[in-house]
Structures are given as C-alpha cells and as structure tokens.
C-alpha cells in the first residue's frame, strides 16, 4: 500500500535548470509520487533549459510541459497557500533548485544560474528555505571536458549566500562506478527532498555544502524475471522437443484431422446431412419409368432404381453433387466460416511441427481426405445416395483443397513461429546468467512447480500455438499464472528475502542481511579527501513492520522516514563537505 507514509510539511517548488534537466524532473517526480501520490496536483516542477533565453516551462507529473511567465508562477505559488492546500505548515516555503551540468561548458555558467536563482528568489517574499543541488555529469564524455573539475575548483567563488544547503551529487560514485544515467542520482535527490521537507520529526542540518551516500535494497525484480523467463523457455523447449515428430501418420491421424469413421471429413458430412435434400418417398414415385407397369420403391437397391428410372437416379445425384460443389466453392462467406472452423480444429489438435510434417507429406495427407472407396450400387437407394455424394465430394480436388489450404496456410504461420522461437532461444543465449545461485534455484523451482501443477494443460496449450500472437498470449498468460501461483511474487521485499534466504544452503537471517546491505552505502561523489562522519544517517522504508523494528533496535542512531512502500528500503547518509578538503581537484 502506497501513500500512507510521511508527508511534505511546507509548500514547495522545484526548479530543474539546464538543458535536459526535464528528464531529471521525470525521475525525481516518479519517486516522490510513489510516496506522496495524493500530492500529484500540488507538486510543481519548472524546467529552465537556458538561462540566457529564460523560458520557463511548468512540468506536469505526466511529463507534459507548458510555457509559463512569472505571473503564472506566482499564481501557482499562491494556490499552495490557499484554504485547499494540503501542506501541513503554510508559514514558509521550500524551494529546490537542481542544476544539471550535462550541457554546462564553463564554470562561469554556474554563476549565471545562481544569478537566475537569486532573481527567482527575489520574487518570493515569504519565509523560505532554499536548497541547491548540483548534479555533476562525470561520465567519460564529460570528464574529457573537465567541466566538473573546474566547477568544483571554482566553488569558493560562487555566491551561495541566498541558499541554505547545497548538495553535490555525481554520477561518478565514490567506488569508481559511473552510472549509466541520472535516474539513481535523481532517486537520491528526491529522497533528500523528502527528508528535508518532512512532516515528521525531520532533519535539521546546518547550512553548508553536502553530498550523500546511498544504498538501495528492493526486490531483485530483474533477476527474478530473468530466472522465470529462462525457466519458462527451457520448459517450453522440452515440450517442443518431445513432440510427436515422425510418429504422426498413424491410425489416430484421421480422427485428429476431423475425418469421420465413414471416411468423410466431419464438416463435409455435417454439410451433406444438413444441406443436401434427397427426394421424399412420395417424390421418389415421381421418377420416370419405361412403362406404366414398372414399380419404384425406396427399398430398391440403387442399381435397381437406376435401371427402372433409366439412369435418372444416378443423374439426379450427379446434379446434387454439382450443386454442392458449386455452393461450396463459390460461397465466400460459407468458405470463410468453414475455413475458420477447420483452422480451429487443426489448431487444437496439432503442434506447429506436426503441421509442418503434414505439409511435407502432402500426398499422404491428400490420400487421407480422398481415400474413400466408391460405394456399391447394391446399397439401398438412399443409403447409396449419401455415400455417393460423400465419395464424390471427397474425390473433388476443389473441395479437398478447402481442407488442404487451411493446413498449408497454417504451415506458413508454423514456419514463422519456428523462426520466432529460434530468435527467442538466441536472445536467451546472449543474456547474462544470474549470479545469485540461491535466487536462481529458488525461482527456477517455483516456476517448474507451476508447470507441474498444471498437469499437462500448459504442455497442450503450448503445442497448439501457431502464431506469433498466440505465442505472445501464451507467454503472457504463463507469466501471469506464475505470479498468481505463489504469493512470494507479491510479498514485500523483506518477506520475499526472508523466505528465500531460509531456503538457501546456508540460511541467513534476513534482518542481518538487510542491515548489512543498507549499511553498505556508496558516496555519490568522488572526493579528494576522505569523508567525515555523516551528519545525518537515515533509512527510508515502510515503518511499523518487523524489519523496521529490527533495524531500529540495532541501529537506533538512524532517522527512519516512513515511505509507506514495502517494496524497498533505502539508506541515505548526508556528509558535510569542506571546499578545500573535499572539492579541490
């Protein structure tokens, strides 16, 4: 459950300065709204890409931007103080500025941004607390330019008198890791916002320059997903390999193809039964005779009836056959209905590999559809009539093609499917394995249990996949099924961890594991001298939980911020910086 943790105390404005800083706003807001979802309409972010041009954009939480003037900013600010405001304390305002240095070329530009900040602050006459965060981009491309170094070396020259606290965060961490993007930095930045605008006990830090150490512990969703998907693919590959290739043409095949015991495909047989009208007994009497003493009866054999009627009976049946053939081959709506029905039957009864085998043996397949022997004329007239029409239709290439075409078309899809499956297997080969054997074994077992629990249903469902869409639907349904199969997938991170660690070869107490992980923070800045002790040590998690109690007991010196989110825990340590000692490079 989200949104029932600590809340913001003061109204606040957030400014994101520098080209591309709107992206930072997106990441930061995403995290803020996880904890403060009810403040969606009251959290206001502004993006200023260029201090010279001075255009200011209001960013909505769904990423849309709207250009605003200073008057509009004042109007927005006013609404945060009106009677509908939900902020707890309206006696002051907190203003957060973030400068993204990605596109900053000279250290002097920071001065210009500070000028802009002062200009904005001069318009707010309320009691205010101001925070500036410098987001240094120190990846290899930006390191070459040396801008970050020059900014830090010039820090003493910047006039930060209007700013209460300055935070310096970098994507080059204290342990040498260079983050791929600024998303983690922004998550940390949003944590700092939460900690410094806290309706709870809150942090009180002296004015100064700070950096932060950070660690994050959540459900290893990416690793879990990798293991589950890999196991699903492995199990499906087993299904695929153990198909009936080579053993398809056996006695059971006609029935699987929908061919009835009388040798006529059921669809055709149903059509003949329902749509072909033979003469009634009375109508049979209207057939011709060579003289007025000849007798006609439905009890006669077809041969005898044909003889008495001078071939009219056979000729009449031929007329019916021609009409059926014409109806079947020209009625496009009927053909489509039949096509769909037959495709459904083949889909349910054959795997992709079997369909390919059917098409490879087209002649044998054709013989199955048209292997009916000519009925004997010694049968009673009406019995012969139905058998003869069935025989005639099954000997008609146009009619047989109605069935064969379905299978040929499905073979094309089957080929595409196999290609897709190969691509899936290839893509699996290039994914790195999950290192954590405990996690790997745990989730692999859970996934296999799910398949075993379905008692053959999943196998059958896989075998009848014939298109990219049905494969995608199958995988989606399987993943959904796995997630609902075991509550482990929806448990809070610490419970998931507890259950998983219990099952490991060397069971570990999850409370100790979590504590160690959270204590292992990494500074988000590479400083020249070693950092002093942190001025504030905080853990952000859902409080009133067992893991919170355990942490609080063992780490009483920490400040615990209630995020209301039991999917993760974060640790933020705030270090005060000395310009000479830490920033000169």
């Amino acid at each position: 459950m989200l949104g029932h943790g600590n809340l913001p105390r003061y109204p606040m404005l957030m400014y994101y300065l520098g080209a591309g800083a709107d992206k930072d706003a997106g990441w930061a807001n995403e995290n803020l709204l996880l904890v403060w979802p009810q403040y969606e309409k009251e959290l206001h972010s502004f993006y200023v890409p260029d201090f010279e041009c001075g255009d200011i954009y209001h960013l909505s939480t769904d990423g849309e931007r709207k250009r605003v003037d200073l008057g509009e900013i004042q109007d927005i600010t006013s609404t945060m103080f009106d009677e509908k405001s939900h902020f707890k304390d309206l006696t002051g305002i907190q203003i957060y500025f973030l400068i993204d240095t990605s596109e900053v070329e000279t250290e002097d530009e920071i001065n210009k941004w500070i000028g802009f900040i002062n200009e904005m602050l001069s318009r707010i006459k309320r009691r205010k607390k101001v925070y500036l965060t410098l987001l240094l981009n120190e990846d290899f491309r930006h390191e070459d330019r040396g801008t970050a170094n020059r900014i830090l070396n010039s820090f003493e020259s910047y006039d930060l008198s209007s700013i209460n606290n300055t935070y310096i965060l970098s994507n080059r961490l204290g342990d040498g890791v260079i983050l791929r993007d600024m998303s983690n930095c922004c998550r940390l930045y949003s944590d700092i916002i939460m900690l410094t605008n806290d309706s709870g006990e809150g942090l009180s830090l002296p004015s100064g320059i700070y950096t932060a150490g950070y660690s994050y512990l959540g459900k290893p969703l990416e690793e879990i997903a990798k293991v589950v998907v890999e196991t699903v693919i492995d199990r499906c590959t087993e299904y695929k390999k153990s198909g009936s290739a080579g053993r398809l043409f056996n006695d059971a095949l006609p029935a699987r193809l929908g061919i009835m015991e009388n040798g006529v495909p059921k669809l055709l047989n149903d059509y003949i039964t329902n749509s072909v009208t033979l003469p009634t007994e009375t109508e049979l009497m209207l057939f011709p005779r060579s003289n007025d003493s000849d007798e006609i009866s439905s009890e006669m054999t077809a041969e005898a009836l044909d003889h008495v009627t001078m071939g009219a009976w056979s000729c009449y049946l031929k007329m019916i056959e021609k009409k059926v053939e014409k109806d079947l081959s020209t009625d496009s709506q009927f053909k489509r209905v039949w096509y769909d029905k037959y495709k459904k039957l083949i889909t349910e009864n054959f795997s992709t590999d079997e369909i390919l085998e059917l098409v490879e043996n087209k002649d044998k397949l054709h013989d199955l559809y048209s292997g009916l022997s000519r009925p004997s004329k010694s049968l009673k007239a009406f019995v012969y009539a139905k058998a003869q029409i069935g025989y005639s239709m099954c000997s008609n290439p146009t009619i047989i093609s109605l069935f064969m075409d379905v299978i040929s078309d499905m073979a094309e899809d089957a080929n595409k499917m196999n290609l897709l499956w190969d691509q899936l297997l290839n893509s699996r080969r290039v994914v790195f394995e999950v290192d954590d054997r405990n996690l790997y074994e745990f989730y692999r077992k859970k996934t296999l249990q799910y398949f075993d629990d379905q008692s053959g249903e999943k196998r059958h469902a896989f075998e009848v996949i014939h298109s990219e869409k049905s494969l995608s639907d199958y995988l989606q349904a399987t993943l959904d099924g796995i997630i609902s199969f075991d509550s482990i997938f929806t448990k809070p991170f610490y419970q998931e961890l507890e259950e998983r660690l219990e099952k490991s070869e060397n069971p570990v107490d999850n409370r100790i594991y979590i504590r160690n992980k959270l204590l292992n923070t990494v500074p988000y800045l590479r400083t020249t001298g070693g950092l002093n002790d942190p001025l504030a040590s905080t853990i952000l998690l859902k409080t009133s939980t067992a893991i919170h109690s355990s942490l609080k007991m063992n780490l009483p010196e920490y400040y615990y911020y209630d995020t209301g989110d039991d999917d993760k825990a974060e640790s933020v340590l705030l270090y005060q910086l000395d310009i000479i000692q830490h920033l000169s490079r």
Partner: protein
Amino acid sequence: MNFTYKPKNPSKYAVNLRALKNSTTMDWDIPSGQTTLIIQCPFGERPNEYMEKICLALNDYLGDITSDCFFEIMPDVKARFITAAEKGRQHGCLIEARSRTYMVFAADISGDDCVIYESQMQAMTPPYVDISTEVTVTVEQQTKSKGFISKSIVPTGYYIIRFDKSTFINYTDGDLVYKIGSLSIPITSQMISLGAIYIKTTVKPEVKPGKKGIRLL
C-alpha cells in the same frame, strides 16, 4: 510445343464462323493457307476472354494436337487445329457437340512453336457461333376408356413424355429436366432412345432445359 497468344493481325485472321440450321458442319473465313484453332466451350462463353489460360493449358497438353478431332484441354473446354487443306476438304468442320459455343483463331505452327492470334470481333462476321440444340418434346396425360355401355375416357394416373428422337443430336444426360412442383428430375439419353417415359402423377410435368443452349420447339 510452346504456345503464345499475340494481338490481332490484319493478315492473320479467322472470322465469320457460321452453321446453317440443322447442319452438321460449320464453316468460317480465313486467308489462303491459314491454319485455324477452334475452341469449343460451354454455350454462351467467349473463350477469347481467357485465352492466356487456354495457351497455358495447351502448353501442358501432352497428346497429339494435330489429331483430327477435338481434344479436352481444360474442364469442359476442347480444342482442335485444322489446316486450310482439311477445311477445304470437309467444307469446314464437323460440329462435334451441340449446345456449345465454338470460336476460331488464326494459328501459325512452326516446328515446336505455335502462335495464336487474337480474333477480330466484328459484329457482322463474328469469329464465334453459339450452336443450340432444338428438340421436340410432348407431354400428354395417359387415359383409358371406362364403362361397358356408355364409355368415358378417364386418366390412368400417368403422364407420358414423348421425345422426337430425330431432333436429339449429341444429347447428354440432364440437358433437359422435367419439373413437378419443386422437384427437378433429369431426362437421360436412355429415355430419349426409348422415345417415351411414364410418370406416375396427376400434375402435368413441365419439361425445361437443364442448361443453356437447348431450345424446346
């Protein structure tokens, strides 16, 4: 043999296909020495509308195309090549079957290649003829005399359909049908050869063509 279909050529033509009433032959006009391809197809069709298919079917035909009779190249479509000399000897060509359409095309055969030329569709001298079959059929109620002293004629419960055999040439089963209510019963060549058939009914059967190209006189 390779067959190709080419656009009409003023010097390569076969036109004015005609058959006199009740004649057993048909004749047409060609330039001197011109070989003709005759296509026989269902009554009312125009084979020039699907000559590409016909050429493909001729390419696939494995029999002797110089045979002196029609040979089937597609379902219900036959062909025959006839040289100018044969045409002269026979005064045209025998009508193989009635209730059929015939169409002539100029053709040049040279070694393994045969070129067929598009026909000139002029209204006055068309390259096709629809040959119908005209038959004479009568339907009568069978009656008998009844009574010893004052005799009266009463129906027997049968109708008799009589066929004038001389008008039935190349008849195929089902070319005619008789209808009683919604029931259509085909008339076979065996019935024609007998001259008359008996139908046990009190409703007069109605004889009708079973396909195009049959006319009841």
